[in-house]
């Protein structure tokens, strides 16, 4: 209960820093899949028409493409982390996200229809969870907030669902 009270203080909070390493790992996995896929394509292309120039060209393209991807995968999560935050008070939950295209979504507590807290296998190893808030709206019918410490996600969920008599007009 103490934890809950301290969460709803209207102060803007960052996501859990462990989310950076989680996102990097997810990125590595995707990058590895893409790298092996593109390697296969390059190999088949070379076998179809073997020549030294072609080999050099596709090897260079493969290296540069995947190098850039790896660099991005490593560099992007901390940038995104800096631009993502959430804020809770007794009335609304506010989520800031986006680096270039920024978006602030404000969901009143009294509009929360139901909530999910989910945890994938990677999230479990990092002690993280994803909070999903559902409203009856259309564009933002489902508002996700990933990268929370699992306990924090549970606490926010509790806070969102505990409704006092004040908001029952």
């Amino acid at each position, binding site marked *: 209960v103490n934890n809950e009270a301290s969460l709803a203080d209207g102060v803007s909070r960052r996501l859990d820093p462990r989310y950076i390493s989680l996102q990097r790992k997810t990125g590595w996995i995707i990058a590895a899949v893409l790298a092996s896929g593109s390697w296969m394509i390059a190999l088949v292309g070379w076998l179809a028409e073997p020549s030294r120039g072609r080999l050099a060209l596709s090897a260079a393209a493969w290296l540069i493409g995947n190098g850039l991807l790896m660099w991005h995968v490593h560099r992007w999560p901390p940038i995104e982390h800096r631009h993502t935050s959430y804020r809770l008070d007794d*009335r*609304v939950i*506010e989520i800031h996200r*986006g680096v*270039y*295209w*920024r*978006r*602030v*979504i*404000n*969901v*009143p*507590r*009294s*509009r929360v*229809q*139901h*909530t*999910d*807290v*989910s*945890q*994938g*296998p990677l999230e*479990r190893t990092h002690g993280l969870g994803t909070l999903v808030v*559902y*409203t*009856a*709206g*259309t*564009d*933002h*019918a*489902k*508002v996700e907030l990933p990268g929370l410490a699992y306990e924090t996600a549970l606490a926010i*969920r509790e806070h969102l*669902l505990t*409704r006092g008599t004040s*908001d*029952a*007009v």
Partner: protein
Amino acid sequence: MPSDIDDAGEQRLHPVSILFSFAGSLKKFALPGLLLLITGGGSMGGPDGRFGRLPPNIELWLMVLLIPAALIAVFQYLAFRLRYAGDELVIRSGFIFRNVRHVPYTRIQNLDAVQNIFHRLLGVTDVRVETGGGKEPEATISVLPMAAFHEMRRRVFERRVSAGLEGAVRLEPPFDFAQGGVGVSRTPDATGVAPNATAGAPARTLLHLDLRDLLLFGFLENRGLVVIGAVYGVLWEIGFLDGFWGGLFDEESYGRGIVRDVLTTLGNRRLLSLAQAGVLVSGVIGLLLFVRAVSMGWAVVRLFGFRLLRIGEDLRTDYGLLTKVSATIPLRRIQTITIREGPLFRLLKRVSVRVETAGGGGASQNSAAASGREWLAPLLRTAALPALVNEVLPELHLAGLQWQPATARAFRRAVKPRLAAAVGLSIGAAFVLRWWAAPLATCLIAWSVLAAWQYVRHLGWAETTEVIAFRSGWLWRSVTVARVAKIQSVALIETPFDRRAAMARVRVDTAGASERSHRVEIPYLPRDLAASLQLRLAAAAAATEFRW
């Protein structure tokens, strides 16, 4: 209770749910294999098959895919748990990707039991928990014993009554098995107001459109191209048009070769002869008139005998020649109202009014009005608008709204994308038309500047304690008003261009809005103003309790 409840008060599904889940996969995967087994027909693979390279009896091998499906069914069953917490339903699911869903009882709109013949034989049921909003049920519980469903229904509605929700909760009699096929038992909607609560009230006609109005509406609305496009598509499909284009472009056809002649003349950059130009102009005018005529026909068929009635606290619209629609719109379910007028509408002092309603449980019996946009008045005299608005949204005084214009800097923002498009088109045209593109480019650029200027001039928003209103459009103008009490969430969006100009847009999300509808989405607001507007709206919405 037949289902086992463990120490934590958690309840599992009925074990036969493994069978039902597996049967679901069976339908997807194993049908070809079963067909092979039953009919004894030839395999698609093997030396005799249609796909000779595939191994023989490939259909049987495909059944190997069923093993993971079976495993998934077992794990789903093992992972699924249901718990009745103090005032919410807690559903735990997933083995690898775990999910815990909390659904407050007060949010549950419907609790549906869906049974097919196998469910009935085994005394179990699929349960769909709907809280509204989304198109799909919020939780599908497959399958629970019947007794557990009754238990769930009892608990959910007991809590709701004790939570002080008004209205008696009717528990419907058990299933109407006479329905045959799939039986659905539906509990009443959460607001507790029975749909027929106002049935006894007298009906008052607010608007009736006669044939003349409908023809006028069709003429003004100009849906002709849409209708023609649809008909054209159908005719194309059935190969009706093969001779048509041949007739237009064929070398041998003389009279109808006009299109070809004009195109070749233009292609060779020669001037049209007077006769050609005359035929071309009259052809274009004829086509435009034809399109309008089709639109009038569409309006008559679609909206024949349009009548808007007020019955107690509900509105009802009845219309249609072939498809008769009778839509009930409970006043309290109206989320937004949109008033639209085109250039010809303004000339004749007419407007067109639509509302958006939220579905929610009870409304789904009214098919058409279940969710989404509804005509309130396809065609209405502008003078009669305040009276209608007063009837529908008494808290809205259109004339009294304090419209805030867009900032002066908005024009520079709005003109840039339009100019870019105009320049792009002009460059493209220059490749084809050479120097003829110069006047075209001048027109395009002038038009884009004018359009941007007029667009910004007609932007506006207004805020009262009860509603938020937004207007936009130059030739076709729309005003949309959303009730603050119906706001679901408020978003502030900044593109990189917005940030450079220290601007933002504010989007108000409501239930029942569709892709095509005019929304309350205010662009080009100064950043600080946008942020404070967002906070104000969210706080105002938070202070009200959302009721369907």
